[in-house]
């Protein structure tokens, strides 16, 4: 059992990080090659300028009209995505691990703040889950996999929160936290989480079609 835990806490972290980064890289190369061979015309219309213009417009909070029509969902979603990256990257206990591995460190979030932010992420995920039930058009589209995705994201935050407060079996909670974090990283390239890669690409293409060809805005 100890060797299993040691594996989860040690090599598996590296393996999952490699799968996450390698998987996304592999996916990216696959997409580019596939576009080259099957839809090369895409490159005739794609421009850096219009891609960035569109991605940029959609990064400005409440700038696109669509986001103003659903302000609550969009606002929560926006903050959620920021926290999703900020918390794991700026948590003091994570930075210590980075420092051990790579001898690099950066300023950490105050633990108390991080604690509240984690709660906010969990609350956002609860909101997403409830929204999937309550808003008819979202409910219509929702299937089990959507809840599974929410659960997968929630798990590392819940376990992390519990571990930090040491409310239950601390050691097991840490293991569960690491394991769920690894699971999420591994899942990213192979699930709809991969929208972290594909969404900028689809946005770039639509932004180019609108900006470069249609001389119109797409936000």
């Amino acid at each position, binding site marked *: 059992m100890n060797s299993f835990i040691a594996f989860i806490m040690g090599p598996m972290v590296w393996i999952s990080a490699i799968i996450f980064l390698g998987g996304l890289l592999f996916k990216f190369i696959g997409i580019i090659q596939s576009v080259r061979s099957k839809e090369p015309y895409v490159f005739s219309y794609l421009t850096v300028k219009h891609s960035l213009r569109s991605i940029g417009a959609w990064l400005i909070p409440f700038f696109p*009209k669509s986001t103003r029509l659903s302000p609550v969902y969009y606002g929560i*979603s926006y903050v959620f995505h920021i926290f999703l990256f900020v918390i794991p990257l700026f948590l003091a206990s994570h930075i210590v691990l980075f420092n051990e591995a790579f001898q690099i460190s950066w300023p950490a979030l105050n633990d108390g703040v991080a604690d509240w932010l984690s709660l906010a992420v969990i609350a956002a995920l609860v909101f997403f889950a409830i929204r999937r039930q309550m808003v008819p058009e979202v409910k219509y589209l929702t299937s089990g996999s959507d809840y599974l995705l929410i659960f997968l994201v929630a798990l590392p935050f819940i376990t992390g929160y519990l571990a930090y407060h040491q409310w239950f079996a601390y050691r097991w909670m840490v293991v569960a936290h690491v394991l769920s974090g690894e699971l999420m990283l591994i899942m990213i390239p192979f699930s709809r989480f991969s929208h972290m890669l594909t969404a900028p690409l689809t946005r770039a293409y639509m932004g180019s079609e609108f900006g470069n060809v249609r001389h119109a805005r797409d936000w």
Partner: protein
Amino acid sequence: MQSQDNTMTDPSNETKQAEKAKQKATDPAIEAGLERLTPERIKKTINQVLEKETGPRFKAYVETCMRCGLCAEACSYFLSNDRDPRFMPAAKVKNTIWEMLVKKGEVSRDFLREAVRISHLECNVCKRCAMYCPFGIDIAYMMLLVRRICHKLEITPQYIQDTVNSHSVTLNQMWVKDDEWIDTLQWQEEDAREEFEDLQIPLDKMGADIMYSVIAPEPKFQAGLIYQTAAMMHAAGIDWTMPSTPGWDNSNMAMYTGDNEISGRIAKAFFETAAKLRVKRIVMGECGHAFRSVYDMGNRWNSWVMPPFEVVHALAFYHELLTEGRITIAEKYKKKVTLHDPCNVSRGRGLHDKAREVVNMVCEDFVDMVPNREHNFCCGAGGGVINCGPPYKGERMVNNRNKAEQLAATGAEVLIAPCHNCHSGLEDIIQHYDLKMEIKFLGDLMYETMEKKIYKPGA
């Protein structure tokens, strides 16, 4: 967002009637087509299209959609049908091509009957939803894929298929025969000489600056529009020509039924006619889908990244005539007007600001509708929907309720619709919802208000 207190009531309680009509509306072409299908053919055709004719784009769209539902607000069908989730863009994908993908093409005839309806009658492929999806997923593209599959399965609705048949035979959309076309031009030329003694509609003039092209409904039903343009061309001193040969029609319904091969053939004939006549630019009448065909879609199938000739939509051309002083306005139009931005020249070409400038140069009292420009609501007729014909008019009116509300809120007396499909669809809406509005092309107002004198350079 659409204000709720402004909700229209359907005058003749036709919602329910249309629901009934919907259940009844049988289309002989769809039914006969479904009858002919075997499970093997269905599976083979769907998989052929999904495997051979799509690529990473489609894959990315399927993998990227997070089912967030933000596209719903974009769609007139969703808004007009009391926010019924079935009409939201992502639901249309879910109920058509996702299912085909998941089931690997093993879908039933009933499923296909519904897929024909969703893709041909409940989506105008206006691409408004692409502006409301945070990821820019192109749902119109996927609806056109569904239409492509329906085309190959020969279950395209009857009337639009007849239009495509006409395209394939005559290279125009309304079975206009070669002699009828030329005869109509000569007749309009003759009529216009009442106003301008030496007016000509020059046929096949080699080396003219501009080839003017129209869609077939103009010679068929609205020849007066050709008259008006001829008057403007003549007054503005433009060196122009119209082709006497097939290739004169820039419309393209094949593009909307997924018959890409006929669509490409139409666009080829169009540009080769311009090349043969050695013109420098092509100006086209007030039509949106035709613009999309030659500017965006038909050209691509033929390996032209962009159209090989500059294609100037009437809106941009009027702007040019007015700003260059080639046409001057005698007296501005007095009635209160509003402007409908057609998807294919606004969202499709960014001509909305020029259009407003023209309207303001021609009319005294202009009120914008809300939303407008790229965000304007679709007319509900375009994308081939109105071309599916009279059997579907009842449900189209139900599906266009939010457009009626938007129009009514302007309080305008005159609606300017610079696109043929929009024009016909909006005319139906005005009539059905009893909106007390007149509908006009921008060219109607240009012609009505312009000074009937000949432009002299430097004068």
